[in-house]
C-alpha cells in the first residue's frame, strides 16, 4: 500500500494521540516531556533573544531540544521528521518560510502532537487546518508600518531633519536578505506607509539596497550612499539592528553625527537589540521598533508546556488567543524616553 504526506503512517504515531493525559499520569513521570524547538537561523540576533526567553521560561520540568534550521526550509522539514522520530512531546517551529507551514503540519498532524509556530506566522488557512496548532509572534508588515510611523514622529520632532528645507525627507532603506519575508514585508510596509503620507511633509525614497542582515555589508552599502548622495540623505531605515550597526558605523567614520549640520541624519532601526540602546540614548539613533522577543518566547514555551501537561492552553498566558489560536506580542516603539523598557525586556532575554 502507499502512503502520502496527508495520511497517517501507522508507525509514526505509535503512542497516544493525546499525550497530555499520558504524561501527567503514571509511570512516565520519571521521564520529563521533551519539547523540540526549531529556530530558523541561529545567526539571527533577534532569534537569539527568543531562544533565550524560551530557555528562561522552560523551567525544570521539561527537556528542550533546540535546533538550528540554518535558514534552510528543506533542512527544517527534515529536522521535524527527526524530532518526531525522536519522540518529542511538542514541537515549536520558527518557520524559515511561512508558506511551508502546511508541509510541517502534514508531518505533525498524524501524531496529534502540539505544534506551536512562533515568530513567522502561517496563513489563517494553515493555522485552522490543525486543531493542535498555535502561534506566537507578530507580523513583520505591522512592524514595518510602525517603523514608518516612528519615522513620521521623528520628523515632526526634528524639523531640522529636512536639511534643505524642501518639505521632502529623502530616505534610504537597508534591507535584509532579499526574498526573506521579514525583509520584504517590512520594507514594503515602510514604502507603503511613507509613500502615502503627505501631511505637510512628504517622503522620498532615494534607494533601497540589501545587506543580507549583516553589518559588514551594511557598512559597505552606506559607504557607497555617502559617496553618491552625501548630505542629501536625511533619513535611514534598516530592517534590523545588525545592519543598523554597520550603517551607523559608516556614517560615523565619514564624520556624521558631529557638529556639521549637513552631516546629520535620522536613523531608525528595528529590534532595539541591546547594542542599539546606547546609540538611542546618545542620540545617534532616533529609535527602534522592538518586537517583544521575550513575550514571544515566553508565550511559545508556555503554550507548549500547557499542552504537554494537559492544561488549558491559555493558562498563564495573560491574554486570550486570537481567531487563529494566535498570541500576538505587540511591537513597541523604543526611543530615548523608554529605553528602559527595552533594557528590561532584554535582561530577561539574556537570562540576567
Amino acid at each position, binding site marked *: 500500500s502507499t502512503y502520502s504526506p*496527508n495520511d497517517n503512517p501507522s508507525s509514526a504515531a505509535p503512542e497516544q494521540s493525546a499525550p497530555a493525559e499520558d504524561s501527567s499520569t503514571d509511570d512516565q513521570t520519571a521521564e520529563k516531556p521533551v519539547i523540540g524547538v526549531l529556530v530558523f537561523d541561529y545567526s539571527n540576533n533577534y532569534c537569539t533573544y527568543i531562544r533565550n526567553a524560551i530557555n528562561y521560561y522552560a523551567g525544570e520540568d521539561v527537556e528542550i531540544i533546540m*535546533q538550528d534550521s540554518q535558514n534552510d526550509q528543506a533542512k527544517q522539514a527534515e529536522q521535524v521528521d527527526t524530532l518526531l*522520530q525522536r519522540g518529542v512531546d511538542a514541537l515549536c517551529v520558527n518557520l524559515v518560510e*511561512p508558506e511551508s507551514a502546511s508541509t510541517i503540519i502534514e508531518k505533525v498532524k498524524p501524531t496529534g502532537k502540539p505544534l506551536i509556530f512562533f515568530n513567522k506566522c502561517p496563513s489563517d488557512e494553515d493555522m485552522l487546518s490543525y486543531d493542535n496548532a498555535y502561534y506566537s509572534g507578530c507580523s513583520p508588515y505591522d512592524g514595518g508600518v510602525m517603523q514608518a510611523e516612528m519615522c513620521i514622529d521623528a520628523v515632526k520632532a526634528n524639523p531640522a531633519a529636512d536639511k534643505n528645507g524642501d518639505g521632502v525627507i529623502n530616505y534610504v532603506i537597508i534591507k535584509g536578505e532579499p*526574498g526573506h519575508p521579514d525583509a520584504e514585508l517590512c520594507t514594503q510596509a515602510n514604502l507603503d506607509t511613507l509613500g502615502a503620507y503627505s501631511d505637510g511633509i512628504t517622503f522620498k525614497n532615494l534607494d533601497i539596497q540589501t545587506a543580507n542582515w549583516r553589518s559588514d555589508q551594511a557598512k559597505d552599502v552606506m559607504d557607497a550612499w555617502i559617496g553618491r548622495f552625501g548630505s542629501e540623505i536625511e533619513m535611514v531605515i534598516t530592517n534590523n539592528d545588525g545592519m543598523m550597526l554597520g550603517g551607523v558605523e559608516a556614517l560615523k567614520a565619514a564624520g556624521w553625527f558631529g557638529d556639521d549640520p549637513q552631516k546629520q541624519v535620522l536613523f531608525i532601526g528595528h529590534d532595539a537589540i541591546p547594542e542599539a540602546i546606547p546609540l538611542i540614548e546618545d542620540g545617534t539613533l532616533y529609535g527602534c521598533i522592538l518586537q517583544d522577543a521575550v513575550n514571544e518566547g515566553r508565550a511559545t514555551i508556555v503554550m507548549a508546556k500547557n499542552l504537554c501537561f494537559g492544561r488549558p492552553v491559555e493558562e498563564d498566558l495573560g491574554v486570550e488567543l486570537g481567531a487563529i489560536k494566535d498570541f500576538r506580542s505587540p511591537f513597541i516603539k523604543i526611543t530615548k524616553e523608554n529605553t528602559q523598557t527595552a533594557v528590561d525586556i532584554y535582561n530577561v532575554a539574556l537570562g540576567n
Partner: protein
Amino acid sequence: MKSISTTAVSWKKQSGSVSKFLLSNAIYFVLAAIFLVMVMINPGLLTLDNISFILSQASTRVIFALGIAGIIILGHTDLSLGRMIGLSGILVSSLLQNLDYPRRIFSSMPRLPLWLPILGAMLLSALIMILLGLVIAKIKVPSFIASLAFQLIVMGILSLYFDYVNDSSPIGGLDDGFKAFVQGGFMIGSVRLPFLVIYAAIVTAIIWFIWNKTKLGKNMYAIGGNPEAANVSGVKITKNLLLIFLIAGLLYGLGGSFEAARTGSASNSLGYGYELDAIAACVVGGVSMRGGVGTIPGVLAGVLIFQLVSYGLVFLGVNPYIQYLVKGLIILLAISIDTQKYVKRR
C-alpha cells in the same frame, strides 16, 4: 601476425590482503562506525523508521551529488549547483500550485500534468549547464570561477523571476498530487519505503550504467585523468564534457523539483550552499578533485555519511554550535581515513 609474446603472464585476480581490503573500503566502515557510535549513545536511533527517514533525506542529495560527481571526475567543479536547485524549485513550484490556493500565481492556468514542469526545469537546467560547459571547454575559464559567476547569474535570474511572479514572497500551496508523488511512499508491513528512495535508486542505476557501461563514462574518466592524452586518443573533449554537464543539469532540475516538493514551498534561498555539501560528500566518498577517480558506491556512501551525521546529531539533540564542531571533526576523520588508500607507500 606473429606473436611477440614469449613468457606468458599469469593473471591473478586482485588478491586483497585484509588490510588492503579494509583500506580501500574504509569509507563504508566509517559510515557503519558513525552509525554504531550514535546508536550506542541513543539506541532509539536504531529503528527502521529512522533509517527510512535518513534514506529519504539522502535521496534528493544523491541525485544532485551524482550530477556534480561527474563534473568533478572530469576534473572540474561546480559552485552553481545550489542556485540551480533553487531555480528549478522556484520554477516548478510556480507552475504546480493547487488550483484552489488563494495566492496561485498563474491563476488562470489549468492544472499541468506533473511531468511537464519537472521536465521543463530539467531542460532549463541542462541548458544553463551546457552554457557553463561551453565557457569552460571553449573559453577555457577555470570551472571554479566560471561556476561561481554562474552561481551569481543564476541567482539573479531566479530572483528576478521570483520577484516578478510572486513579489519575492515564498511560493506555497504546492499541488497536493506533486507533494504526494515526492513525499509519499509504500508501506511494506509497518515499514515505510519512501518513493524518493525509489527515484534515487533509479537515477543511481542510470548513472551507474552511464559511468561504467558506456563510452561517455569511459571518456569521462579519461578526460579527468589526463585531458591531453584523451584528446590525442581521439576523445572529443568538448562533446563529452558538454554531455556530462547536460546530465548534471538534468539531475539538478530533477533534484530541485523534488526538493521544492519535499519542502512544501520555495523561495530564492532554496538550495543555498548545497554545492559545498554535495562536493564534500563526493570527496569524502573518494571522488578525487584532481579528476579521473570516483565511484558510484563511494558517492552514495559520502552522501549517506553527511545525512546520517545531520540526522543523528539532531536526533541526539546536540547543541547546534557543537554540531558544527562535531560535523567538522567527523568529515576530517572520514576523509583522513579514506585518503590513506591513495597515499603512496614509499
